């Protein structure tokens, strides 16, 4: 009875994934990685956050089908 229509999950990343991505990026920046946005007077955290907002961070997550994270971006459930 359940119709198989594709419904995107309301978020791209879970809050844990978001935290992890931003955290890693902020660490890179803090250690001297090239920054992808313009502007001065910001700390690594703010830069990482803005980069994430603008979808510039070249990092994504790997999801395992057998792991805890099982939802794809658009998934049946």
């Amino acid at each position, binding site marked *: 009875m*359940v*119709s198989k229509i594709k419904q995107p999950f309301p978020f791209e990343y*879970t809050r844990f994934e978001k935290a992890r991505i931003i955290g890693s990026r902020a660490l890179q920046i803090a250690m001297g990685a090239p920054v992808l946005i313009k502007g001065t007077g910001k700390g690594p955290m703010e830069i990482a956050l803005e980069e994430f907002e603008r*979808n510039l961070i*070249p*990092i*994504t*997550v790997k999801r395992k089908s057998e792991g805890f994270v099982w939802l794809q971006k658009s998934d049946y459930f």
Partner: protein
Amino acid sequence: MSKYDSVLNKYPIPDTIKVEIKEKLEELKVTKKVAGEVAERCYRAYLTNLMEPGEAAGIVAAQSIGEPGTQMTMRTFHYAGVAEIDVTLGLPRLIEILDVRKNPSTPLMTIRLTEEYAKDRNKAREVANRIEATYIVDIADVETDIRNLVIVVNLDEKALKRKQLTIDEIRKKIEKSLKTEVVEENGNLIVKSEPSYKVLMDLFDKLKKLVLAGIKEIRRVIIRKEDDEYILYTEGSNLKKVSKVKGVDFTRTITNNIYEIYEVLGIEAARNAVIEEAISTLEEQGLEVDIRHIMLVADTMTADGELKQIGRHGVAGEKQSILARAAFEMTVNNLLDAAVRGDRDRLSGITENIIVGQPIKLGTGDVELITRYTRTKK
């Protein structure tokens, strides 16, 4: 088929929620367009209430049950509940449920009757007599006659009538169970024994323990009228036997002995019983715990198809990790046994990784990062 079905089936939400929404929609008789809007909003609300992958659901459940649990009465509290039946409540009862005791301290049954028997008090009494365990002392005075080496059973006519038993029935029952001769003598029953004092006393003890009618485990039956129906409440429980008694509506009969439900009705029924009993125990104490926390507990208890307790002999004791088991109870025994067997710990769970000081597979710890080569514009 309702006209709202097609609207609701567009959304992958649980059937129970669909039914609820449908009922409300039918009550309000809204148009299909409005129904679509409602379904959309409900779906959004449903999604925001979902747990995110990686969240520590078990720990949240443990805290959510544990925190109000501190306010429960520590004492074994009995109260005169439904019709003067004692019920274990509060913390002791909750422990009983989670430990899956085979013999809970206060087993109870609520027996509803078939239509034929439910409306009439005498008919209900009839069923009650078939269920309630009747001993010889309930219906007669029993004496030993040492001079003639016989037991004299002085039957009480009134009690017999109330229990709907005849003298002949009792005579046959005693004769069959004790394998001795029983004769009727002006309203009394004479149980004959071998000419030995010891045998006579043994016989006397056996006679006192003999269940003449009803089910052994059911110690007391109380008949109460609720709405226009007579309901039986019993002290003691035996679901299997009660279900076979004539006049009992098995589909509406319940017991608070979870293990019995598991044996008679199966694992799914046991899961529902665990949830129901735990929720009602907490609610009775005025504590509100979300049902989903308790459902998680019930699920872990029943996931393997058998009812396991939370503890050494169940969920915690069957963990595959040695360190997790050792961290729970009987540390030395667990480690020693594991060493003797040459076991390996795969370090796949939470507890063992905390012990060895590694990130755990929960929340941010469960996220694996990889490089993204394409840059998508938002």
